[in-house]
């Protein structure tokens, strides 16, 4: 068990260092790094001071080490576009995205998994066929089209829900949450449904496919031959075996949600990381871009670690205990 964790941690660190290197390269080689760090209004004196402080006359491996030290303390420099420190900028935007992603993830799981199980167990019912047809449309509908349609119906025509912004927000320290106001929740509905829909259909299809595979196995056939009750077979044996690969996909799903949140935030003008990075790309705001890169990599790495750990806990075959052999 220990060696497993250590191995995984080691790989994660390597990934983070590579990403940090790409980030560092962006800083160094695109434009004047000093410009990237202090914005356009700094005087020549300030620049020279910074040059010395940053040790830009030193060989680059040392600079890289310095860079890693800085970013691990959250020091990313100044946004080229907005002129405030990047870490502050991220702090104002991160909560919006995290809350949106969280709500969408929960939504897609609690709807997608049962739908998948149902369509796997009841292959030929009309409801299954309906779900499957809807799911096909679901994966063909791009996220932004869903968002636009929802805005059109619920925002423009019916005028039930707000169509942009987060609504009422409460500050808990540096974290601003929309969970504590009715208005905040109302504003969350359309964006989270939009974001969840794509993932929901993916999860449903995956769970269904896994379920069908599992139901064809010998051990399910053997459990039938032993006369086990349907409930034990389906919700005991079949479900547990189905959910194991679903765990990985859920992990991937968080990553996917983060990516698609960029689109959703654009459609609904949701003030999160997505809008931030888009503006950064268009403006070639290097500090923001490179910090976003590192942040995303960190989140992915952590998710991968958690998924690996979960896999280890759930699937006994992965635990390399000493096999007690005897004939």
């Amino acid at each position, binding site marked *: 068990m220990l060696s497993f964790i250590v191995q995984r941690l080691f790989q994660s660190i390597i990934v983070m260092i590579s990403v940090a290197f790409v980030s560092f390269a962006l800083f160094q080689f695109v434009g004047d790094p000093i410009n990237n760090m202090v914005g356009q209004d700094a005087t020549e004196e300030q620049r020279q001071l910074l040059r010395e402080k940053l040790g830009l006359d030193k060989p680059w491996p040392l600079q890289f080490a310095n860079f890693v030290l800085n970013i691990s303390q959250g020091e990313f420099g100044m946004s080229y576009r907005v002129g405030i420190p990047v870490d502050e900028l991220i702090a104002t935007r991160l909560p919006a995205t995290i809350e949106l992603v969280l709500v969408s993830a929960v939504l897609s799981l609690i709807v997608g998994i049962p739908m998948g199980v149902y369509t796997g167990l009841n292959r030929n019912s009309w409801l299954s066929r309906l779900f499957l047809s809807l799911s096909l449309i679901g994966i063909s509908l791009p996220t932004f089209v869903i968002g636009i349609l929802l805005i059109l119906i619920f925002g423009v025509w019916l005028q039930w829900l707000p169509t942009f912004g987060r609504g009422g927000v409460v500050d808990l320290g540096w974290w601003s949450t929309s969970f504590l106001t009715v208005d905040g929740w109302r504003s969350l509905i359309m964006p989270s449904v939009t974001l969840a829909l794509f993932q929901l259909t993916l999860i449903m299809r995956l769970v269904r496919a896994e379920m069908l595979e599992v139901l064809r196995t010998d051990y399910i*056939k053997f459990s039938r031959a032993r006369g086990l009750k349907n409930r034990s077979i389906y919700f005991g044996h079949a479900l547990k075996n189905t959910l194991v690969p679903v765990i990985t996909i859920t992990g991937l799903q968080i990553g996917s949600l983060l990516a698609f949140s960029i689109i959703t935030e654009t459609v609904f003008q949701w003030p999160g990381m997505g809008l931030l990075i888009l503006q950064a790309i268009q403006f070639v705001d290097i500090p923001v871009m490179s910090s976003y890169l590192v942040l995303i990599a960190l989140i992915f790495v952590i998710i991968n670690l958690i998924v690996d750990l979960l896999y280890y806990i759930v699937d006994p075959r992965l635990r390399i205990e000493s096999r007690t052999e005897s004939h």
Partner: protein
Amino acid sequence: MDKKPILSVHNLQVEFPTRKGNLVAVNDISFEVNEGEVLGVVGESGAGKSITGSSIIGLIDPPGRITGGEINFLDQRIDHLSAEEMRTIRGKEIGMVFQDPLTSLNPLYRIGRQLTETIQTHLHLDDKNARLQAINLLAEVGIPSPEIRIDHYPHQFSGGMRQRVVIALALCANPKLIIADEPTTALDVSIQAQIIALLKKLCKEHKTAVILITHDMGVIAETADRVAVMYAGKMAEIGKVYDVIKKPKHPYTVGLMNSIPKMGQDTEALMQIEGSMPRLNEIPQGCAFHPRCNQVMEQCKKTVPPMIKLEDSNIACWLYPSK
């Protein structure tokens, strides 16, 4: 051995509908299994042995289905029971053992859990007693240190040990009949003998009848009381093991026995039957074996020979006319 049949199959027909028409996998077969006896079912791959076994326990892979005949178990007709009624019979009255012990066990559950689950479904024991029963069963099938190994996972057992666990699971609720579908094919030769001996011993002790499906005549000779020879979905010959092996009647059985090399035999070429068993969609008219038979007659090409009783055996061949 009592000559009281616990299972009798009459004119069983199993078909698979396909786009190109119905394929008949089991064609009008009849046989009986007596209390406590071991009936071997031999034949080539595709002869219909496994499907016969599956249809008795009601687990034919869809889209196959029973299209004719009856299956009677303990004076009750079981071929057209509802799913729930059939479920109460499976495990408790009729058990089944499959070929591959690795895939027969759920890799994510400890074998103790798989055992107690089965025990508690059929017998009303509480958790503690169910676990004790499970440990006893494991000891009975020859698993060392059963009180420790009961909490292990399937992948922690070797192939032979796993099959023992599978047998324990099949015998949990003391069924009257076990259908063993190629139980040793996936195992090492050295282990095969052990497993067969175990099966034989347990079934004698529990007075369980066994339908032993295999293509290995050696296993049959060792274990079975009677044997049924299947060919292309039909029964060719059924009789006592000694009779079928030493005095085979059906030309196919004769060919089979001749093709087994004997120790001390001084021959250069192995004997084989010319041709091969036809595929399900290419079964010839009349007797299915006639194109390969060295004693074929005109009648064989036109009409299917019925199964008749001849002394202690049953045979379906025009060489043996009914009285």
